[in-house]
């Protein structure tokens, strides 16, 4: 097996127009997946920039190296933001973009949570608090084999309510897995509530540090910030790293931004077209589905 090259550190001054254009396309795909049955649109839009950045600039994985044991792994632990993952993978060439139109069709495996038969999806998820543990196993094996590849686990902030997350944080630190990176999509909202009003998580970076992790906070929508954060891994030698990425639920579409009632949504085709126009700078979409979007 050919070893993959060591990932490149990215110059912080770099032009990010390519990433911005890609993120716009990914958001448009997410909005289209919210039609005819819907999807978890809020979280998909909040983590879109993170996934676009990771797959474009950080992760050492390409469609041709999907079976290479030397590849970097990304595990989407919260799972319900999978439209953003599928859209990013499709745009990056892991499978045809047209396949996204199969969303919710019984003839394909593209539904509300990740299915690992879709190229690029390393493991299924949907039940919160599982994939840090699975990531520990992958990271342990990489270390056993002397590999330099890394394991990125994307977590939701609401997901941090699960005790298994903190159990796994203890174990990853105890095992000194500095090839692990937790990326928290800190959009401040869980299903129906603001995290700080239900089960407060702050001071979150201090919690990770107290559990033996290196931790830094970044703007999860600023590609230059993300360049810098991901170029500096591991944050501390011998420790796993947590990147708390401050994000906005529904980011990119003002009608959907930072709203507790836009977690899961099913829109009409007409509404989706209006939301896409809004994404591209048009005026606010009129949403007649308002009353039936909350789960």
């Amino acid at each position, binding site marked *: 097996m050919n070893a993959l090259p060591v990932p490149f550190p990215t110059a912080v001054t770099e032009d990010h127009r390519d990433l911005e254009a890609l993120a716009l396309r990914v958001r448009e795909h997410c909005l289209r997946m919210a039609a005819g049955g819907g999807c978890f649109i809020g979280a998909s839009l909040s983590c879109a920039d993170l996934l676009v950045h990771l797959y474009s600039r950080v992760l050492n994985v390409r469609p041709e190296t999907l079976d290479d044991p030397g590849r970097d792994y990304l595990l989407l632990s919260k799972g319900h933001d999978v439209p953003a993952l599928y859209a990013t993978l499709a745009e990056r060439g892991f499978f045809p973009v047209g396949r996204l139109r199969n969303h919710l069709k019984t003839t394909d495996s593209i539904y509300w949570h990740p299915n690992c038969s879709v190229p690029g999806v390393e493991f299924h998820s949907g039940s919160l*608090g599982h994939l840090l543990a*699975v990531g520990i196993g992958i990271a*342990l094996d990489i*270390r*056993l084999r002397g590999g330099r590849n890394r394991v990125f686990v994307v977590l939701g902030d609401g997901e941090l309510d699960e005790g*298994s997350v903190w159990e796994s944080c203890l*174990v990853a630190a105890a095992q000194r897995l500095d090839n692990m990176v937790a990326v928290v999509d800190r959009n401040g909202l869980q299903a129906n509530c603001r995290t700080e009003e239900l089960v407060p998580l702050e001071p979150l970076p201090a919690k990770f540090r107290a559990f033996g992790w290196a931790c830094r906070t970044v703007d999860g929508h600023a590609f230059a910030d993300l360049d810098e954060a991901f170029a500096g891994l591991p944050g501390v030698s011998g420790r796993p790293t947590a990147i708390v990425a401050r994000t906005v639920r529904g980011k990119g579409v003002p009608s959907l931004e930072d709203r507790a009632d836009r977690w899961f949504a099913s829109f009409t085709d007409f509404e989706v077209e209006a939301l896409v126009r809004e994404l591209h700078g048009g005026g606010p979409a009129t949403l007649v589905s308002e009353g039936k979007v909350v789960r």
Partner: protein
Amino acid sequence: MRARTTYEQALAALAAERDDLVVLTAENRAHVRGLPEALGARFVDVGICEQTMVGAAAGLALRGRTPVVHGLATFLTLRAFEFIRTDVGLPRLPVKLVGFVPGLLSEANGPTHQAIDDVAVMRAIPGMQVFCPADLDELVEALPHIVASRAPAYVRYTAAPPAVAHVEPFAIGKAEVLSHDEGVSLLTYGPLLREAEGARGVLAARGVPVHLVNLRTLEPMDEESIVDAVRPAELVVTLEDHFHRGGLHTIVAETCLKHHLAPRVLGLDLGTSFFRPALLPDVLEHEGLAGARVAERILDALCHREANA
């Protein structure tokens, strides 16, 4: 007499043959104490973190490893149940879950430690193999087969001395038939085989012939051996250290339904109750599962039938 191979020695020998084998424990080291030295970095103690251990085992299996993971049977199967079902069972990864002190073996620990629903919950997971060796020799003989299988597996651990003189080599999904007499068909698994053999002796002395089956594997079950045992029997007895529901009695019932058989069945098990915590011989006696008590209960059932005939 040759020295008996311990579980730990058998696992270390397998690990020496198979690079893919890794051993994990949730700080339960009683039966794997020598493995850190033998396996080095291929031994991982995650601490008292059953969920993380099972998830990590899934991750290791994704990378081509065969993880053998250890925990107390009740915490392994129940605390980590959703991780087993979702991360190991659903993708059918070859993770081998070894539960310590299952059934009555938790002795005086009390109900928190009583894994007497473990067969039911593990068997509920599609593709999960369930192994219940009767004694250490059977466990050691089964171990290479269990590890070689690419299916997920749950093993009820025992270090018990030989329950009987075994007559058949171990094979996955094959029961061992220890006596072929027609009359009472006594089906059991795990360390209670010793009690079943004791009961068989008592019954034989009373002129009651016993067809004795040691199931060994509860999933996949040995349907043929169950049918062969049930079909000619005057009375079918299931003997197990498990709740009445979800274990061998349920397996026999499912098999009978499938084959249009309606035998008379006596379930000797823990019913719907946690057992009285005590040392094993006292538990066996108190719960009516000691060999002599099993024989009495079978004779009572036979007499009851004659009285009603």
